[in-house]
């Protein structure tokens, strides 16, 4: 089997077995690196950093990066298509089944329990995002000073952004992201 097909197969397997989103693909990519030596661990670290600092789902960014490193643009396209193919097939089947059974009392009962739980998962993720964006735990541990814990410019920016979205609720999220990126560059966050 050519290396190109093998790469597609490995990404197909990753897409099939990585459950729970982007970061779940990283252990699989580590395994690929060890097994085939297609890319080094060092490069993998760079890939993770770039994938997290560019828009788009991290898992998709990772597969594109690996594919590009191996086979340029065709590699980027086919690695990513191989990654999403399994879930595309699985989700289309589930979506079809869900449409049929949506109104059954069993399905209704199950989802009445799951929906509030998902809100809990999301808020748990939001707390982690807030901690990362607004607090500097490492500096706090080093000095113990409360003024080192809170990233004051970030908190100020947060209030400005919340103020803007409260004042103009119709403003598109893209605009808020643009303002924040500009503020980050301007004030050297």
């Amino acid at each position, binding site marked *: 089997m050519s290396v190109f097909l093998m790469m597609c197969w490995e990404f197909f397997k990753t897409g099939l077995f990585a459950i729970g989103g982007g970061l779940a693909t990283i252990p699989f990519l580590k395994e690929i690196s060890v097994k085939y030596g297609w890319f080094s661990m060092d490069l993998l670290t760079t890939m993770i950093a770039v994938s997290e600092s560019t828009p788009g*789902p991290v898992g998709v960014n990772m597969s594109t*990066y690996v594919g590009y490193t191996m086979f340029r643009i065709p590699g980027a396209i086919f690695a990513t298509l191989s990654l*999403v193919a399994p879930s595309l097939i*699985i989700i289309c089947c589930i979506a079809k089944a869900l449409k049929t059974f949506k109104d059954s009392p069993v399905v209704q009962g199950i989802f009445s*329990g799951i929906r509030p739980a998902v809100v809990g998962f999301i808020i748990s993720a939001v707390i982690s995002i807030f901690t990362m*964006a607004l607090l500097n735990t490492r500096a706090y541990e080093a000095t113990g000073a409360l003024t080192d814990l809170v990233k004051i410019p970030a908190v100020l920016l947060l209030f400005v952004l919340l103020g803007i979205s409260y004042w103009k609720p119709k403003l598109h999220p893209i605009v808020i992201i643009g303002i924040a*990126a500009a503020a980050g560059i301007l004030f050297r966050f």
Partner: protein
Amino acid sequence: MKTLWELYYTWFKMGLFTFGGGYAMLPMIQREVIDKHHWCSEEEIMDYYAIGQVTPGIIAVNTATFVGYDVKGIPGGIIATLGVISPSIVIITVIAGLITNFSELAVVQSALRGIQVAVCALMFTAVVKLYKNSVKNAVSFAIFVIALILAYFTKISTVILVIAAGAVGYALSVMRKEKA
């Protein structure tokens, strides 16, 4: 044809302006998918997130497939998925080919730290809205609090938590029916 193009274009935007993927996509989904195009309800998005947690694949991609399927069946699912992955393919290809030290550039890091704060602001507004719509009685509040605590403080896999929450929801619905 027009709907398929709209699906592609909308999910392209989603892929282009989401940093972090998955849940971070919620503000954009509320704006584009729910409010603007009325492709699905907030409840359905919650269901898709939950299913995305327990099925293989990337949650952002799974959600795109679901919404696309709702709108236009299998072609819709494929087109929405291609839409959400297209920006990544273009951007990563350019960066991998041209700027090897991209993530180390000072200007990129500053912009990202700003964007992180934007994600906080957007998620805060999105989550307040979501909470008001989804947690309406004592039972759902209890499930919400327990799920939040377990997800934040323990390492229990989300797959198990979703299955457990589904089992609780089913058991409660059976009990309600027996009472009635």
